[in-house]
């Protein structure tokens, strides 16, 4: 990866400045033009190296519901069930994992009550139970990658 791309990633994971010309500030720090910064960020968004650029709101404080849920789905039905589960707009991430509980997804709902409602709907739609594992305490969030 180009060293300027790396520098942009390392720098902007920690935060974007709230000022008139935030990209000019980054450009000055990295010794390149503002245009180059804008083009490089857009390119990394387009090719998928960046999944997001901007604010991440706090679901619960915004009045929403959030949980991690798991299901145990027979291998030969997995694709069909994952399609049903992912058709719910409340499903954010969905990963297959190597365990008897093999489907793990995040539910983000408009209201706290929406979590239970959506789980019921998913159980009804798929015919399999959903194990709800809401967060009880958050000890650490440092999701950051230094390149």
């Amino acid at each position, binding site marked *: *990866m180009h060293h300027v791309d790396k520098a942009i*990633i390392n720098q*902007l*994971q*920690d*935060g*974007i400045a*709230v000022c*008139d*010309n*935030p*990209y000019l500030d980054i450009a000055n720090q990295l010794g390149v033009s*503002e245009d180059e910064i804008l083009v490089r960020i857009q390119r990394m968004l387009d*090719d*998928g*190296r*960046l*999944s*997001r*650029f*901007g*604010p*991440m*709101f*706090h*679901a619960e*404080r*915004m009045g*929403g519901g*959030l949980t*991690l849920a*798991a299901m*145990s789905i027979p291998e030969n039905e997995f694709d069909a069930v*994952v399609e049903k589960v*992912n058709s719910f707009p409340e*499903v*954010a*991430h*969905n*990963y*297959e*994992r*190597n365990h008897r*509980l093999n489907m793990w997804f995040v539910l*983000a*709902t*408009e209201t706290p009550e929406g979590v239970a409602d959506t789980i019921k709907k998913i159980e009804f739609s798929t015919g399999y139970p959903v*194990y*709800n*594992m*809401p*967060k*009880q*305490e*958050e*000890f*650490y969030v*440092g*999701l950051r*990658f230094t390149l």
Partner: protein
Amino acid sequence: MQQVLAVSKDTPVMPLSLDDDQKKRLRALIQDGLPLVEAPYQLLAERIDSQEQLVMDCIAQWQQDGLIKRYGLVVNHHKLGYVANAMVVWNVDDCEVDAVAAKLSSFDAVTLCYRRRRQLPEWPYNLFCMIHGKSRETVLAYIQRMVQEGQLHHIEHKVLFSTKQYKQRGGRYVSKSDSRDGKVLEGAA
């Protein structure tokens, strides 16, 4: 909420903060990302019929109040070569959770550490942490080191690697009743 106005006889009235409708519109606009233009806050202000300073004040306030949890770029770890994504789950005595969580969180490669509700009898694990690495071997070796150094031998744990990613979006929520009333939700529950 009524808009706060600074009234003057000679100059047009200048609002001191965004009104509720403008806040909703701003939230919806930035949920997909900050615009990539030289003056992004000015552009946002034009879109919601307000002023750059008020937009910046509002976003700064959301950060201060903790409504915005993170404000920066998020990388797709898979695309950057961190292809081994392990969820390590531990079955910890309730009275020991705080101490174990503190140990786990002290390791560099641990990116998230949450206590979650058990689902007995199917699922006895109550402490979850995430480790991203470039290969399964390095992640497994790292977990061994954590067990050794943290003296966690007595705690049953399991390593669940992701074998496929089916959906990843930014935890975006747009209410069906009003597409402008956008809520953005944190993705990593």
